């Protein structure tokens, strides 16, 4: 099994929590205050609430429903309904493999993807199946080398994460080209 880009690193600041889908599976994505990105199953083990609706407090991902806090290792550290209680170690959301490389957050397992200097451009959300986006690849646009990384969200929606691997000459023009790419994909 390999790695799939699920966000641009630049779009996930310390303390941010976001939700995404990968092949129909809901994933909670968050960055702790030490700067480490995490991808977890989007479900609090307590009452099933999506953790992507939560917030980061004291460096812990905190569930919106009851404020249960999980540290970077996924251990439950606080249950506000019982402030004196030390949560048992069995309370843990399911964690997925998550690494950062080449300006992107990747989900998966195995040998990590190559890490190169990168300049963030955009994540294009497209209402088309991932097959239409083509494979993970490098392309030269307007003299700039881009890394294009497709993410299947579900059977009919996808996302193309794009960074520059060389300093981009004309960011505005590249963003314009990317918007045009999305329109052409969705019109096809």
């Amino acid at each position, binding site marked *: 099994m390999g790695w799939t880009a699920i966000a641009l690193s630049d779009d996930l600041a310390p303390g941010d929590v976001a939700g995404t889908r990968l092949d129909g599976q*809901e994933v909670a994505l968050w960055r702790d205050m030490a700067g480490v990105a995490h991808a977890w199953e*989007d*479900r609090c*083990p*307590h*009452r*099933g*609430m*999506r953790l992507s*609706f939560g917030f980061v407090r004291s460096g812990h991902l905190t569930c*919106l*429903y*009851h*404020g249960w806090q999980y540290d970077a290792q996924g251990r439950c550290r606080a*249950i*506000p*309904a*019982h*402030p004196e*209680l030390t949560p048992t170690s*069995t*309370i843990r959301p399911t964690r997925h493999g998550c690494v950062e490389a080449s300006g992107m957050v990747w989900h998966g397992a195995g040998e990590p993807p190559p890490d190169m200097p990168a300049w963030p451009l955009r994540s294009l959300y497209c209402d088309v199946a991932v097959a239409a986006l083509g494979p993970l690849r490098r392309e030269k646009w307007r003299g700039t080398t881009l890394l294009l990384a497709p993410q299947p969200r579900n059977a009919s929606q996808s996302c193309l994460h794009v960074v520059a691997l060389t300093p981009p000459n004309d960011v505005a023009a590249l963003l314009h080209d990317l918007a045009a790419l999305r329109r052409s994909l969705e019109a096809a």
Partner: protein
Amino acid sequence: MPRTSDRVALDDWYAVESAASLSAVPLRTRLLGEAITLLRDANGAALAHDEAGASLAVLESYGLIFVTLGAPTRPLVHIAEAQEQDRRVIPCGWTTIRASGLRLVENFLDMAHFPFVHADILGAEPHTEVVHYPSAIRRDVDEVWATGCRFWQPRAAATDETGTLMEIDYRVTSPFIVMLYRFAPSAPHRRDCIALFIQPLEEALCRAQPVMWLVDAISTHSAMLHFEQVIFRQDRIIVENQRPLTLPLDPRHEIPTRADSSSVAYRRWLKERGLRFGTFEGRGA
């Protein structure tokens, strides 16, 4: 989706419409997967038919129309406060929610979420503790009760400006009807009564209406209505984003804590009754 084959779900009463909304003009709605039609006859009596045109038993009570697709073994819930003449009756309107109605009942029973979901209204940090309360399946009435629940609420009702250590009793009278009694901030010797009536449309889709019988001579009707609607909107965000959308009854599926004792009793009661509609196990996926 066709009518459920779940006998337990079929043999029960469900609120399906506001009595005031029903006229000679037929209304189409759904119950337990089945399309049903509601209307009043020339004498004003409420009627209901299933998809095949067969008549369904109908009751009109609490300002609502109740229907069953089966043969209920128990009478409709009795709410004594609804008979008290000086109560303000606030029907809060129907809301469609993309989740099992059972998730909504459990949310209604839950105090621990007040400081997070209803921040600065029904709860506020750092007052997050849920102190022990007794909860039980009451065999004498076949209902789930949680009594003597206490929670600090900064603004427990439309009249409450200063905060209250609220005392609440919770009562589940059927799988899709849940109530609470709380001491009325404006009349400390009488209890407000709020019921949540749920119309299960599909396994993970329902319509619900809170009805309040309040002891409140001060607030305007719209202030009381608005108050409850704000709360309900906040809860809707939660239940529509719980996974699964149906309620798991297997205790290994989700991890409770002491504050969830009413939820644990409710799930156990549903399991004992053999209810499958709206449960994760019944859906099989």
